[in-house]
């Protein structure tokens, strides 16, 4: 799967003979090595679920969160190098603040995604910087419905119905495609997202993980926030229950 750059991969300011920028592709590798993020655009909102892998029992739980707020109405979930993501979060917050100062209304998420993409793309043009090693997901519930955008390290941005990024993105994508997202309500979407995270989590390679869940939609009036404790507990038990079901099915076979 990995191809050798052989000399054309030393800086982002160089193309390879077959027209690739290897540094950007290597940045994508950094994204693929991180814990999985699942985002679902349901009928009336968007659900984020993040598999936050814990490497040591000594860490305080809840440190190094991977879901953040950009403005009250926009949520950001990150996959990849967390330190890079921290800078992008600051940039996004600055953009949102400046837009509100200039125009008096909250920044539309599509516009923010474009600005962030332009910023990330700038770092893929020069030899003295490296591209950002993270994939940013932006979610908001605006007047024309829920919107989910993803920005890649190359600076490309797409709008999504559902997306999975990180270690288990292929498996998670297959699971997402089984869902009928346009008919799914947000409360069920949260449960489904949690279930997918539990399903794709690799018990062997990464022992401990923390689940992070957040939502934005009609239910909380477009204000992005972490899900309330009861909803979180319900989603976790739903996820664990479906895991056991799957185990039972395996046993039967």
């Amino acid at each position, binding site marked *: 799967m990995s191809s050798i750059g052989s000399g054309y991969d030393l800086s982002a300011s160089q193309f390879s003979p077959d027209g690739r920028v290897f540094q950007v592709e290597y940045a994508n590798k950094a994204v693929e090595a991180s814990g999985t993020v699942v985002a679902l655009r349901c009928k009336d909102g968007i659900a984020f679920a993040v598999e936050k892998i814990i490497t040591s029992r000594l860490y305080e739980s809840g440190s190094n969160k991977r879901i953040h707020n950009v403005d009250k109405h926009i949520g950001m979930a990150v996959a990849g190098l967390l330190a890079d993501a921290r800078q992008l979060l600051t940039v996004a917050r600055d953009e949102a603040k400046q837009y509100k100062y*200039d*125009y*008096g209304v909250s920044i*539309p998420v599509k*516009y923010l995604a474009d600005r962030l993409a332009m910023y990330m793309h700038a770092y893929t043009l020069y030899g003295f910087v490296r591209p950002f090693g993270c994939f940013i997901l932006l979610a908001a519930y605006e*007047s024309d419905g829920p919107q989910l955008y993803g920005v890649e390290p190359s600076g490309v941005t797409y709008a999504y119905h559902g997306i999975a990024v990180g270690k288990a993105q292929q498996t998670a994508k297959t699971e997402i495609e089984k869902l009928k997202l346009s008919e799914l309500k947000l409360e069920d979407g949260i449960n489904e997202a949690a279930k997918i995270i539990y399903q794709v989590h690799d018990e062997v390679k990464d022992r401990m993980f923390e689940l992070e869940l957040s939502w934005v939609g009609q239910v909380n009036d477009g204000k992005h926030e972490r899900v309330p404790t009861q909803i979180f507990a319900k989603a976790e038990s739903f996820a664990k229950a479906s895991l056991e079901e799957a185990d039972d099915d395996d046993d039967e076979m």
Partner: protein
Amino acid sequence: MDVLNPMTYDAEEDQLRDRTKYSQMDKHIIPVEFQQQPVSTGTTIVAVEYDGGVIIGADTRTSAGTFVMNRFTDKLTPLTDQIFCLRSGSAADTQAIAQVVTYQLDFLSAEMNEPPLVRIAANCVRRMIYQYRDDFLAGMIVAGWDKKLGGQVYSCPLGGLLVRQPVTLGGSGSTYIWGYLDNNYRPNMTKDECYDFVLKGITLAITRDGSSGGCARIAIINKDGVERIDVLGNDLPKVFDL
């Protein structure tokens, strides 16, 4: 201008200064007494929201002191295809603001790939007025239609305030018709009732305010676009004239 050597004579800048000097430009057109008076849109401006859009109207007089410089001015200035601003105060200041905001909105709509919201236009106008509040004399109303909130009217008066109102008046002539508004405005009027309200209001103000006069220019803005109506002097509704 030569930045390195600022004392050098710059022919271009000198000519520019000459061209824009007020009295030199107009000494052959305007009588001497009026050349030192600032040009103001004395004005009456009215804007009202109705279900589906807004109706805006203004008189057509621009005065320099007692001299009527333009008797058929257009004070209804488009900022975008479906957002207009009504200008009162100094003609130069309001024109400058309208130009700058038009540019800003043009740029923004290219970036966002959709027409800007009326609130954003009103904010840009208000920001300029507030930033230069000690220098400008501009009282503006921003009104238009966007697909998020429909017809909206925002008042941006002298100091740099921004407030959305269902109906608002502006300019020197407005003082004479606040009573008319209080007595005759009702919420949820139909489009024709609003039109009559705006036209009658402007006519009454023209009758009483020396700085307002001429004809009435009215525009109806809704999702289908802008309809402009010019009601000439003799077609204005009849008002009891002592």
